């Protein structure tokens, strides 16, 4: 800063008001907290399913969700990609909303945002990924409890005070002198077993 200028807090012009900053959890993996979203103002009826839109709900809170389908009376039904159910309220077709067109990350990258059919495909992929993650968590929990199906691990080496167990050449667990086994991944714990050395 070369010289002191009177500090000022200047409202940005209408052109630059077309920015929004993302915060929250409902659209994580599409946006990260702090990302700046470039938006364009449109009438709700001009949006297409798959578009990500910013709007204000009945409580005055700013929401950024994806428009997923039309309601029976022509309104917009929205839903966060990470939410379990669509939003309760329906956006009337004559409302003004903001469609997100670009994403500016904190590191300075500019990423175009999928809209329309491509946006709907992204939405379905995100939902499937969430479902798959949930299935894998349940499967890992079940496998962890079924001991007789697990593969025994017998190879180990001593490193100082610790014993490191290997399976197919990869370290999978370690055991210190107090005989507590620490697994390097929950999946290793789910499918492998180590016979605790007898005292």
């Amino acid at each position, binding site marked *: *800063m*070369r010289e*002191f*200028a*009177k500090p000022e*807090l*200047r*409202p*940005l012009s209408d052109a630059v008001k077309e920015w*929004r900053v993302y915060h929250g959890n409902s659209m994580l993996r599409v946006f990260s907290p702090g990302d700046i979203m470039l938006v364009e103002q449109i009438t709700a009826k001009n949006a297409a399913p798959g578009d990500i839109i910013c709007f204000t709900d009945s409580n005055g809170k700013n929401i950024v969700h994806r428009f997923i389908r039309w309601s029976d009376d022509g309104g917009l039904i929205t839903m966060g990609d990470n939410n379990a159910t669509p939003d309760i309220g329906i956006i009337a077709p004559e409302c003004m909303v903001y469609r997100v067109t670009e994403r500016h990350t904190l590191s300075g990258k500019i990423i175009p945002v999928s809209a329309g059919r491509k946006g709907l495909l992204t939405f379905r992929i995100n939902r499937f990924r969430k479902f798959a993650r949930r299935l894998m968590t349940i499967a890992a929990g079940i496998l962890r409890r079924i001991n007789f199906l697990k593969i025994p691990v017998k190879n180990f080496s001593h490193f100082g005070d610790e014993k490191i167990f290997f399976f197919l050449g990869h370290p999978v667990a370690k055991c210190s002198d107090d005989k507590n086994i620490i697994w390097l991944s929950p999946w290793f714990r789910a499918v492998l077993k180590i016979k605790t050395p007898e005292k």
Partner: protein
Amino acid sequence: MIKVNPLAVFRQEFDNNAILFNPDSGEIFALNPTGRVIWQAISEGLDREGILKKLADECSTPLPPEAGRDLDDFIASLKDKGFLADA
């Protein structure tokens, strides 16, 4: 002692200016370089004297006599817009 609104978003631009966004009100403001330095100093927890010292360090010219008054006015406007609060 003043504290920063934890929800406020600060983003420094490439030309030493900055943008402040208040998600509660949805308002966006531009800060000039002086305002940017003041905001960063407040975020670091500096008091009024510490902020003036930091401004003096950042400027290549001595601070004018009205710098203290301008700083107080600026902090008052930040409080008014919801970016700061008294601790």
